[in-house]
């Protein structure tokens, strides 16, 4: 017996009432006990007294007692055993509600001693005549498996569950599917069992038919469970894929958003097996309306829907092509909704709706919220780069915005203008004076660097280019590295274009960069320029003023292989984060390998060098991180030892789980770091300055280091761009 509370105080009074001769007094006391329990008071001392009230005809009272038991079973395991008899008796009660309640509670108690008594009643309840009891029992099997899997197997509950998929009641089918899925996931999480066992819940063709039939008849939650199971099914042939799609499409009209997105996931997976072009088109067309419908929901649901729409559009840009107006932002929308909407609007932009888009974006750029204003200005730049015919109009809007002289608007606009100069060289030179007149307004490194790049690029057309650059050369040592690098390159460009008048300034900047600067990148670049200029000015011209491939808006923000994987996960968290699930859930952390795997898959066209430099960069970053944490470098070497190139692709083309094992499921900051970068681009060199080649490329690619990216976080996307645009081959040749 536990120690009795003193004979006074609240608990004592409760205990007296719990033992009262009057039923209603006892019930009231139980309620008060539960009330104390909820506010965190310890009422575990009343366990025996509460237990006495378990045998009652009053269902509500029984529920409350059970609630109490569930809360304190963990702390009072010896006492719980006293309740076993009542539980077993209740599992045989004539009232189905009582039977179901008893089975459910026993499954939740998680007390070893109770579990042993659970099997017999559970056996009976799985065959109960009442569907409510059967479906409760089905879920209970999953819970039992969680605690003691061997009991489930010994008692043959698994095969019983498999039989129950054919149950006449759709709710029982749905819950059985949910239970089997839970067990399947739990079993495959343990590597030992998954290798020997082909899988707990294998969906066969006959099960498929049963699921499709039950789908239309069960509750919304049951539908989600069934749809998730269907998403796992591997269709045998084209006909089956078509059949599944046709049966699932009506679910788009369900009022519950969860069902709609789960159905969308099934379609996205099985549409891959549909060959008939017109059917595929028809299916895609049917996806748009339910997505738009979700936009009339509360903002939280809207956000999830928008994130998914953003993903779907990357694969199938046509689905919402005429619906841009639905995504117009309202002033009162929460920021997280607005940012997503702007992203999607740019995705949907075309020549026919660009005017509406631009006037919207201009409107947003005058709002109060700084983050949103910047996002809108960026979006204008993206539109200009995306739609050639609208570039003029975009530039005019940007000029208007610069005219407002609001500091952050001007800075963002300058950054964006630089992208437009890259895309349309020598088209908008008339704008340059306006930009230069705002020189004093700029205080952010990115904006400064952008303006310097523009000055250097058009040095021969700007009369006072040397005066302007002189301003930055004078304050060279105080500027940030990004600005220093750009100043350096711009001055060299100026020199190559106007060698007569700028001898002095180029000497000065090279001198400052090599002697007074503490960044190795800046120094290295200065030395390279110096050597180039002093040995062969022609070669210098070829390098510094070489042709740059035009930039474009990436159609996708994630690697194609990852996109395919994410689309298979539509409606899951991974599609909301736009990251593979392993990066934020799962047993181990994601290693370089599994991330690389996707990267290498995605970039079949990448050259060996790209891949190598990418890996190098990742490791450099990781090593730096490790050094800071004073961890050993063992892992770093291990990854270095991995075969690169094609061999790596072969080995890494295994499941992410296997890759995880290979890299060791270590709790190593490297893994975290890589998984963070991994979300944007698996193979991008993450820190250009560290890698000499990338740093050199920065002279050209520096221009590309710009937020032409489409979604946050911007820094990651920029590097994707820089990566794809660097004319690395040319460079290597010169070396």
């Amino acid at each position, binding site marked *: 017996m536990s120690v009795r509370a003193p004979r006074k105080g609240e608990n004592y009074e409760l205990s007296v009432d719990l033992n009262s001769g009057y039923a209603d007094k006892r019930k009231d006391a139980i309620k008060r006990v539960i009330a104390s329990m909820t506010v965190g008071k310890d009422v575990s001392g009343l366990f025996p007294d509460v237990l006495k009230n378990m045998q009652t005809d009053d269902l509500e009272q029984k529920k409350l007692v059970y609630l109490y038991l569930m809360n304190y079973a963990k702390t009072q395991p010896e006492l719980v055993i006293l309740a076993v008899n009542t539980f077993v008796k209740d599992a045989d009660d004539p009232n189905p509600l009582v039977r179901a309640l008893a089975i459910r509670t026993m499954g939740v108690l998680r007390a070893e001693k109770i579990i042993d008594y659970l099997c017999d009643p559970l056996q009976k309840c799985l065959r109960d005549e009442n569907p409510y009891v059967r479906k409760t029992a089905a879920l209970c099997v999953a819970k039992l498996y969680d605690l003691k899997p061997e009991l489930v197997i010994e008692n043959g509950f698994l095969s019983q569950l498999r039989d129950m998929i054919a149950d006449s009641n759709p709710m029982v089918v749905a819950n059985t599917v949910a239970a089997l899925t839970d067990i399947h996931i739990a079993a495959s999480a343990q590597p030992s069992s998954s290798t020997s066992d082909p899988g707990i819940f294998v969906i066969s063709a006959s099960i498929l038919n049963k699921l499709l039939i039950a789908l*239309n008849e069960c509750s919304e939650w049951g539908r989600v469970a069934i749809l998730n199971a269907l998403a796992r099914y591997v269709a045998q042939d084209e006909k089956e894929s078509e059949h599944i799609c046709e049966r699932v499409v009506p679910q788009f009209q369900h009022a519950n958003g969860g069902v709609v997105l789960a159905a969308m996931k099934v379609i996205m997976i099985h549409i891959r097996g549909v060959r008939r072009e017109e059917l595929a088109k028809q299916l895609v067309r049917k996806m748009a309306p339910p997505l738009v419908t979700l936009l009339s929901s509360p903002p939280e649901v809207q956000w999830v829907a928008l994130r998914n729409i953003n993903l779907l559009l990357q694969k199938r840009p046509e689905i919402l*092509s005429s619906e841009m107006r639905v995504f117009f932002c309202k*002033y009162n929308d929460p920021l997280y909704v607005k940012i997503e909407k702007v992203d999607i609007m740019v995705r949907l932009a075309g020549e026919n709706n660009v005017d509406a888009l631009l006037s919207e974006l201009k409107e947003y750029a005058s709002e109060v919220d700084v983050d949103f204003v910047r996002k809108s200005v960026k979006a204008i730049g993206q539109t200009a780069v995306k739609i050639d015919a609208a570039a003029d109009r975009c530039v005019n809007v940007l000029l208007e915005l610069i005219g407002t002289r609001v500091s952050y608007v001007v800075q963002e606009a300058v950054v964006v203008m630089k992208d437009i100069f890259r895309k349309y060289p020598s088209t908008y030179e008339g704008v340059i004076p306006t930009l230069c007149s705002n020189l004093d307004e700029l205080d952010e490194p990115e904006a400064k660097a952008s303006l310097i790049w523009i000055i250097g690029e058009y040095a021969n057309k700007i009369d006072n280019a040397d005066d302007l650059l002189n301003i930055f050369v004078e304050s060279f040592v105080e500027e940030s590295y990004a600005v220093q690098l750009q100043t350096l390159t711009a001055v060299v460009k100026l020199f190559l274009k106007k060698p007569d008048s700028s001898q002095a300034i180029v000497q000065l900047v090279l001198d400052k960069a090599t002697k007074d600067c503490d960044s190795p990148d800046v120094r290295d670049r200065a030395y390279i320029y110096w050597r180039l200029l002093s040995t062969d000015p022609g070669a210098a011209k070829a390098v510094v003023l070489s042709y740059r491939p035009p930039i474009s808006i990436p159609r996708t923000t994630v690697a194609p292989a990852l996109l395919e994987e994410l689309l298979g996960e539509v409606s899951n968290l991974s599609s909301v984060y736009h990251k593979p699930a392993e990066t934020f859930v799962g047993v181990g952390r994601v290693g370089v390998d599994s991330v690389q795997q996707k990267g290498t898959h995605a970039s079949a066209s990448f050259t060996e060098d790209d891949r190598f430099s990418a890996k190098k960069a990742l490791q450099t970053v990781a090593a730096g991180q490790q050094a800071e944490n004073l961890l050993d470098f063992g892992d770093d070497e291990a990854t270095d030892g991995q075969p690169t190139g094609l061999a790596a692709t072969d080995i890494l083309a295994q499941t992410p789980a296997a890759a995880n094992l290979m890299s060791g499921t270590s709790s190593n900051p490297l893994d975290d770091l890589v998984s963070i970068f991994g979300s944007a681009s698996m193979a991008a060199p993450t820190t250009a300055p560290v890698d000499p080649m990338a740093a050199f490329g920065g002279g050209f690619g520096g221009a590309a280091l710009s937020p032409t990216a489409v979604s946050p976080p911007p820094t990651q996307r920029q590097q994707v761009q820089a990566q794809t645009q660097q004319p690395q081959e040319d460079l290597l040749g010169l070396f």
Partner: protein
Amino acid sequence: MAIDGLIILDNTGRPIIQSGFRSTSAAYPMLHVDAFNNALPKSHRSGDIDPVIYVPPYNVADSPSACCHVECADMRILCPVSGDVDPLFAFAFLQTFIDILREYFGALSAATLKDNFDVVYQLLEETLDAGGHPLTTSPNALRDIVLPPSLLSKLLSVAGANLNSTINSGSGGGPFSSPIPWRKAGLRYNSNEIYFDMVEDLTAIVNKHGTTLSCSVWGKIETNAKLSGTPDCLLTFTNPHVITDCAFHPCIRLQRWKRDSSMSFVPPDGHFTLAEYRYTPTATATSARFISTGPPSAALAAKENIPIPFLLKPTVELTDSGGTFEFKLTSRMPSQTMEALVAEMYLGEGAGGVKCVASRGDGGGNLGRRAHDTMSTGGSATGSWTFDAKKMAVRWELPVVPPSSVWLLRGSFTSPSSGPRPAHALQVRFTVPSYTFSSLKIDQLKVTGETYKPYKGVRGKTSGNVEWRW
């Protein structure tokens, strides 16, 4: 897996009720409460917290989780999820749970839930399995197993009567014996009635020239059915083509809708939402039919054809230390009266010294004025205004706006030294009783399978939310 449980927080961020979290460590729910409370002050505006918060694991061995949350009256409901699950699943469940709470307690507040914690606990247990699977969420079935707190049951329990006899007896079919999951068997009503409420909601953005930029009308058919037995209803419309993008209650037979646009269903008992739809003006239907080959912009323009029921002329002038504004609102409704019209404008951080004069213009409203003079008293004859110092917004309220009446609000405000940065838009909300934009008409309701003739009622109701930029 999936939904780990629910935590209900009061407005100070303290949990008042939470589900058991029996399969996770004791610290788990607290981690989520802390994650939410930490995210709260970081948001710009109160509603701006990311709806899915990433919650790092407490132990290295645990896997991280995510916290979905929604606001509900003066409370926040958190829903921790772990594993790669669908956040919409969590949000859909949260919404369903809130609906259930409303069904049980009417208007919600932290105090109501605290008073009825025993019922809330029972509901939690019945709706969410410890394994993360939602169980019974249909109010029809729930009412069988969890008794709503009513005055009657309180009275009876005081008198010592055993009201629970119905749910305690296993005989007579009992709960969950119905073959239709959303309807319980053996219902009996003395008077059989079914009511349909067509509730439509207009959302629109209008630019400073008065051109509608984007405009959509979302509708719902809210139904209250009190029918005996197992009635099979067939609802037909005279103009079903005005609605598109329908989402239906599971009771509706989708095949039938596809065939002839009529809704055939066995209704749940009590209140439920039969269908949701989007209104597309007939112009779209016709233009789409005639110029299906034309440029998509033509169809697009036609889609925006829903007229905004009022006209607003905002004039705002800004100076270095504040500004003046004048809003002129004219009702464009032909014969209906708009009610509870509220226009709001954010005046920017630090705004103050708001002085306004609300008046009623003389345009065209004589007839309307006479009709309303008798019932409207001083305040509502001119409209009223307030300044919400917390939201930094001036609010203009017009309780009754008769057809083609004109209203005016003139005022000024001051701003701190950095200059005024007000919102460039007014948010206008209003309702119109007995009116729908779509004028979706029910042709007839046929009830088969039962012998009685039910009493039928249809009602329309419209609300609007318009952003008017200047």
